[in-house]
């Protein structure tokens, strides 16, 4: 079902106040996006409140550079504003949002470094052995906060493709199929990436369980 993204404001108001196909499918974010496309700025605020943190951390964990994360995060949301007129409900809003985020990340990798692009696009799915020397011993980690920080370090040490799959699952709440749709990879590939990522993280966190 297609929606006219350029509908008038009264249509947007109607879309915001009445259940649509997107809402019926359990995607209230899609309805909010349609409402925003119809001129409801408040709908955008609600969308931003829901997804700004996850998308920001997606860039932050992927880039490991705060300034770059700010830049790409801003680009993502500005692209969303520009794309409002052509938005149609084809999938969950989060899938659409993180597909744009993935594309922006790939674009950044292409411009900045071929090495990182290769690291992201090739299936570096083989589980690497966790370097025991780099893992802090249990005596140095006393609290769960320290465990969480250790987990973040291990997440950032993941291969790019596995890390992205993990972040899309945790930050975006995407399913396997949605991750595959957002990244353009096959479902089995995504499944494999997630399995390897979880294996590595479990192995790294076994001392904290």
């Amino acid at each position, binding site marked *: 079902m297609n929606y006219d993204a350029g509908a008038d404001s009264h249509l947007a108001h109607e879309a915001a106040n009445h259940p649509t196909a997107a809402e019926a499918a359990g995607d209230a974010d899609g309805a909010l996006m349609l409402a925003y496309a119809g001129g409801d700025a408040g709908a955008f605020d609600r969308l931003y409140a829901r997804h700004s943190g996850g998308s920001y951390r997606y860039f932050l964990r992927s880039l490991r550079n705060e300034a770059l994360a700010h830049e790409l995060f801003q680009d993502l949301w500005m692209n969303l504003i520009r794309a*409002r007129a052509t938005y149609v409900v084809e999938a969950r809003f989060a899938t659409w949002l993180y597909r744009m985020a993935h594309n922006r990340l790939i674009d950044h990798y292409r411009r900045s470094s071929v090495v990182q692009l290769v690291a992201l696009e090739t299936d570096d799915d083989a589980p690497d052995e966790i370097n025991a020397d780099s893992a802090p011993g249990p005596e140095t980690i006393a609290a769960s906060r320290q465990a969480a920080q250790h987990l*973040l370090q291990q997440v950032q040490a993941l291969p790019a493709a596995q890390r992205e799959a993990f972040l899309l699952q945790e930050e975006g709440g995407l399913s*396997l199929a949605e991750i595959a749709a957002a990244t353009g990879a096959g479902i089995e590939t995504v499944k494999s990436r997630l399995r390897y990522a979880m294996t590595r993280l479990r192995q790294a966190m076994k001392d904290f369980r």
Partner: protein
Amino acid sequence: MSEERDRELSRHYRAASAEMPPPALGRAIRAAAAQAVDAPPGRWQRKWGLPLAMAASVVLGLGMVLRAALERPDLQPPPVSATATAPYPPAAEVRGSGSVAMPSAMPTPEPAVRSRAAPAAAAAPAAAAAPAAAAAPAVAAPAPERQSPQQAVSAEMQRSPAPTDQASIPESKAQGSADSVAAPAASARDRARAELSLRVPPLATAPAAPAPESARPQSRPLAESAQGQVAGTTANAAMQEQRAAPPMAPAARAKALGADAAQSADSNVLGIAAEAELPAEEWLRRIVALRLAARHVEADASLARFVRRHPDYRVPQQARPPNP
């Protein structure tokens, strides 16, 4: 999925994931979002864009349908047969006017459908003039006035159907008839028969050199249309071939071709089969020789055959029909 999702890991991860974008950045993004919808660009476009696009699509579609309908082959005018009876004006009127009636002044048997097949449609009114000229000698037996060879061609086409075997009649039958300005009707008829047997395409129907200047532009389309009747669609094909030929030839090569052409004019009339076996240069030389001998009918016929056999060969100016 359970294998790919570990709740314990998720809990640890969420406990550590508290980073948020800077508030200033969030405010700037929200302000940009609000500004984008406060002043929506192209409100007029959104209102009228769809109706205009639909109207343009309808107009385009109708145009394509009309064009397709006009180009349907079953709407093309049928070829006019040589024996077709149409409301032609009396031959006496045509003869009384002193010249062959212009095709545009003649009533056409049926309205020609205007389409891309313009030559075929244009041949229809021209063809209507042919029987009128043909009837002239039948009404007034001794033709007191000069009759151009092209008129005689038309007249003969009315009397005899086109032969099917082009090579059965040698071209030499047409000799000796190209130089008569005041040729009697019988002589013109002989030449017409010879030319008819060769099925000369339209390029070969250039007016004969001795024809009066006033008669040339009128007799030319007449002859073209008459031969178009006989040759059918091959006339259009020949016209396309001639159009595809380059307009000019290098002067030097033409000069060389015409150097000894006059000397060998008489020996240049060969049978069609023998002529087709000639090399292109030799064939052109013979055509030029025929032109220099003012035997344009034979030259035209030979040139038409040459163009059919060598469609991509550049024809020198001396071998082409003289401009009226």
